[in-house]
């Protein structure tokens, strides 16, 4: 059923397919191909799981605590920005 050229074409489109961003024509083609190609199904499943793992991984690293001085300078910049915004309005 499946041949290498089809598999190669599908292979390049798998992320778009997973993200529901593949063009309708491509989407149909991928689904038709996958229905008859076990290796592509297997590969797609591994990619799906890998994406889920990567997403979980990156959320681990917490930032160092922000010092009071830095927070105060941010608050001051914010205050000035709000002030100039309200002055522009009036």
């Amino acid at each position: 059923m499946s041949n290498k050229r089809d598999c190669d074409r599908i292979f390049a489109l798998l992320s778009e397919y997973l993200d529901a961003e593949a063009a309708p024509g491509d989407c149909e083609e991928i689904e038709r191909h996958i229905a008859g190609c076990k290796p592509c199904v297997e590969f797609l499943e591994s990619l799906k799981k890998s994406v889920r793992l990567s997403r979980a991984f990156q959320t681990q690293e917490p930032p160092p605590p922000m010092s009071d001085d830095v927070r105060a300078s941010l608050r001051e910049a914010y205050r000035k920005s709000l002030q100039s915004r309200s002055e522009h309005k009036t």
Partner: protein
Amino acid sequence: MGAAVTTDSELARKLIEGADGAFENFVDVYYAKLFRYSYTMCSQREDAEEVAQDTLLRVFESLNQLREPDHLKSWVFRIAKNACLMKRRKSVFAPKTEISLDELKPKRVGDDGGMRIEIADWSALPEDLALDAEMRRQLQRAVHELPDSYKSVFLLRDIEELSTGEAADVLGVTTDVVKTRLHRARLALRKSLDEYMRESRA
């Protein structure tokens, strides 16, 4: 209402209005996001801390320029991306590298009749997918080894959950380039995990 702020555009609107708690909420949410992005891009905790704080300062200083609250996320990350580039320029010269799709294809065994691919048994991974410490290190290495332009797309799309259009806007490239780089980055990470799984279960 009464519920915690959920979306980025809501957060931006409250920030612009000067609503109670908007400053703290924004700083807490975005400091963590910006640190995570810059740490992965710059690889140094100190640099990442500086980039995250400088970005927040730039954001507050130029809050007047934010016309569309819906664009908050891409606006903030564009500032962070440029800050990371400046840091890298100061420290190391990063060559532009591309990832080839062919290198990421699994090996095929057999002919059309009984063809299979040589990959690990991913179906054996539990659905709740917890990462063990060694696997986490493997993934960390793989992310670290991605060329910058791919790493950045991966972080913006899969970690910070920007849309394809937003990521394209941050990076100044087309949506097609974002899609291509994201796919290759994901394939490279998948390959690295696949190799780890095959080695550890051999």
